[in-house]
């Protein structure tokens, strides 16, 4: 009986398998050809940006410059490759003329950006542009028009590039943003530091402070109008908040005998987390800027510092040596039991939560080498993006795709410089600064 049951079961299973196989075969006979592709290529997308059309004589130079900045922005991401104008078959002489797709297809331009610039006597600039998918033979999104003044032409160009970048990649924009950093001058033994601000690509640098006192760790507010930083002008580290518009400033949580440092804004712009060192112990505190209310978030004999809010404001990641080595922990924004998230070899520090909320960037020191790395917010999928003598202080771009950090060369003549790297680990490149630079903080996207 049992044998009969088993035979029946085997027979039923065989019939079922045959039925499935027959169905698949019949599907293959009657349906379309089906294939699966799992191997592609990772290469930058070739694009063409002819000089924008100058609608009047006053726009001649600006039309060319805006096209250059757009091309530079896109090429700088490492995701795009510009096709030189000497390869062009077609020329764009009128913004409204039809596009000869075949000519751009022949030079393998997959994206084409055309535009025009108009400058009025009153100094008003109008930029129009269109983006074309050459191989699809259609426009990607509608044409756009931006307006500004002659002094804002670079911002207009960044806005154009931002739109193109977002439409093609699906990522959020980040070109129209700024970076505050510590500008360093003088020999290594007598380094002078000033706060400075510049466009994300290094253009338009300006100093925010003088070099009379040491300044460290500037951090942008979520709206980009204020900067937190640490100053040693009193001999002890103290936190200041500066208004970027008029460079006015005030001290935060000024306590006698206490050292405050490593500040960072919360996502609401009204809350600041920072480290306060009193009596030889360093813990993390939260300060409400409006009410002045201060809340202690950690209370351990170890050193807790470098706090960073999650974008939703619910959690804080920070570094602590409570386990004996410097590691990363997360905790609720109102304090609570910390949870360790870094378990690799070496020491972890300066964690920064991604604006997307999905990753945490950090500095890692292991066996004499420094790395910038990223991990999931639970500590999984750790990836190291860089390696050098000294890499430190990551800061996320507004779209969470790029990380800017400081790299210092070794030796007595070594100097820090700013670098950026794609979150994939590709496209490591140096950011142009007039002086040696460290401690970058990326602003949000400008309005």
């Amino acid at each position, binding site marked *: 009986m049992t044998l009969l049951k088993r035979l029946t079961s085997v027979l039923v299973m065989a019939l079922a398998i045959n039925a499935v196989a027959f169905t698949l075969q019949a599907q293959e*006979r*009657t349906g*379309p*050809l*089906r*294939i*699966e*592709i*799992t*191997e*592609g*290529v*990772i*290469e930058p997308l070739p694009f063409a940006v002819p000089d924008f059309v100058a609608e009047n004589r006053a726009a001649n130079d600006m039309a060319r410059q805006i096209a250059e900045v757009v091309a530079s922005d896109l090429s700088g991401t490492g*995701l795009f490759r510009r096709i030189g104008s000497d390869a062009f078959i077609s020329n764009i002489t009128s913004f409204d*003329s*039809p*596009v000869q*797709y*075949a000519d751009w297809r022949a030079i*393998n331009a*997959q994206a084409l950006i055309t535009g025009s610039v108009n400058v009025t006597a009153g100094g008003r600039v109008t930029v*129009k542009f269109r983006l074309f*998918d050459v*191989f*699809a*033979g259609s426009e990607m999104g509608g*044409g756009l*028009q*931006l*307006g*500004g*003044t002659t002094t*804002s032409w670079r*911002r207009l160009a960044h806005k154009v590039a931002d739109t193109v970048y977002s439409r093609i*990649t699906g990522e959020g924009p980040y070109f*129209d943003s700024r970076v505050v950093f510590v500008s360093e*001058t003088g020999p290594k033994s007598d380094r*002078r530091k000033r706060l400075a601000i510049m466009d994300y690509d290094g253009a338009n640098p*300006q*100093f925010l402070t*003088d*070099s009379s006192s040491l300044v460290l760790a500037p951090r942008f507010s979520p709206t980009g109008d204020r900067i937190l930083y640490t100053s040693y002008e009193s001999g002890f580290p103290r936190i200041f908040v500066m208004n*970027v*518009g008029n*460079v006015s400033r005030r001290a935060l949580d000024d306590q006698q005998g206490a050292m405050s440092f490593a500040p960072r804004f919360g996502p609401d712009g009204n809350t600041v987390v920072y480290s306060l060192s009193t009596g030889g112990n360093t813990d993390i505190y939260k300060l409400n800027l409006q009410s002045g209310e201060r809340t202690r978030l950690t209370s351990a004999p170890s050193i807790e510092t470098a706090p960073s809010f999650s974008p939703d404001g619910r959690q804080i990641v920070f570094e602590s040596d409570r386990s004996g080595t410097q590691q990363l922990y997360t905790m609720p924004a109102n304090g609570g039991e910390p949870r360790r998230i870094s378990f690799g070899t070496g020491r972890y520090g300066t964690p920064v939560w991604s604006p997307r909320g999905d990753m945490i960037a950090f500095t890692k020191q292991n066996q*004499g080498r420094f*790395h910038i790395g990223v991990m999931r917010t639970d500590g999984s999928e*750790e990836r*190291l993006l860089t*390696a*050098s003598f000294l890499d430190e202080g990551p800061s996320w771009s507004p779209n969470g795709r790029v990380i800017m950090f400081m*790299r210092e060369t070794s030796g*007595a*003549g070594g100097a820090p*410089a700013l670098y950026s790297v794609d979150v994939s*680990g590709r496209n*490591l490149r140096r950011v142009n600064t007039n002086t*040696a630079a460290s401690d970058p903080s990326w602003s949000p996207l*400008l309005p």
Partner: protein
Amino acid sequence: MNKGTYISGALHLIAIVLILFGGMFDDIDDNEFEVAEVSIVSSEEFAALSQPVEVPSPVLDVTAPQAPQQEPETDAPILPATEAPQETAEVAEPETPPDADVSPDLSEITPLPEVEVEPVVPITPSTPTTENVATLLPNLSQRPTPRDSERVAPTPAAQPEPDVEISDSVRDATEPDVPAEQVQEEQIATAPEEATTEIVPETTEPPSSAPLSSPRPASRPERPVRVAETTEEPASLDTSIETALNEANTSERTPTPAASVPSGPPLTRGEKDALRLAVGACWSLGSSSTEAMRTTVVVGVEMSRDGKPQAATIRLIDSDGPNDSATQIAFSAARRAIIRCGTRGYNLPTDKYDRWRDIEITFNPERMRTR
């Protein structure tokens, strides 16, 4: 004996010639000896010079970590540790800037230039050139425009009519007027040969007279079915042609059931792999968002018999991704891949066209994410 004398004489002669003209010993004569001035040092002076000199120690930060030769990282990064220095090797060291001014110069601060991000004004899109890859109607080629005359003459002349005889003078053709009483002699129209006053280079390629697109080929005719002979009267030739034309026109517009069911042997694994590799070579995710890199899309496309994809038929069939934006980006990348690598037609067996007329391609970037 004479032979030995001759050989000896010839060798001596060669040696003499080489000495006189060959410069065999020039190197020996031209060698110059380096001359160095020396001075006599006493034993006391030598002993003083041999004393070890205390070298001032350089300013070193002994606490600074030394960079190891290799990266012995156990949790190896995705990118090799050598990649970062390699990329930055071309980057120049930052120049040592001049000393910063001690006094603050806050007058340098200029306000952020305002950009009036006006409400996005859509511009009326221009009508792009019509480039339908697939069309049901033949695109008849236009008559090619005449090229500029290669003949150079003092007086330019337009291109004469095709039936006009070449002559120095222009003369209209005349025909005998039937009702006229006076009979006019028939004469042939003449015109000067086409000419221009200067040599005109061919700056542009004349437009191609080839059709830009061709009608979609008709589906394979159904196999003739042997039927029993009927007693009907055989149709006339005109009726048969008319019937055949009607059938052909009908079959072009509405696919027969036989056309939707592929016939013949299926594609071999090798043929499928070749198509897979061909499309994959153009499937670039380098400019895709990280979310698009996590999106799988199934894309359908209809192919023409020459192996070229019909761009207008490329459609999204299914997707599996975090959001619509990522799906759209992934679909765009897939569509570009199909079109770009198919511009010259994929290498597919023509005799199995029914098998690959419609293709569904699944673009799965799972393995690409780990790169």
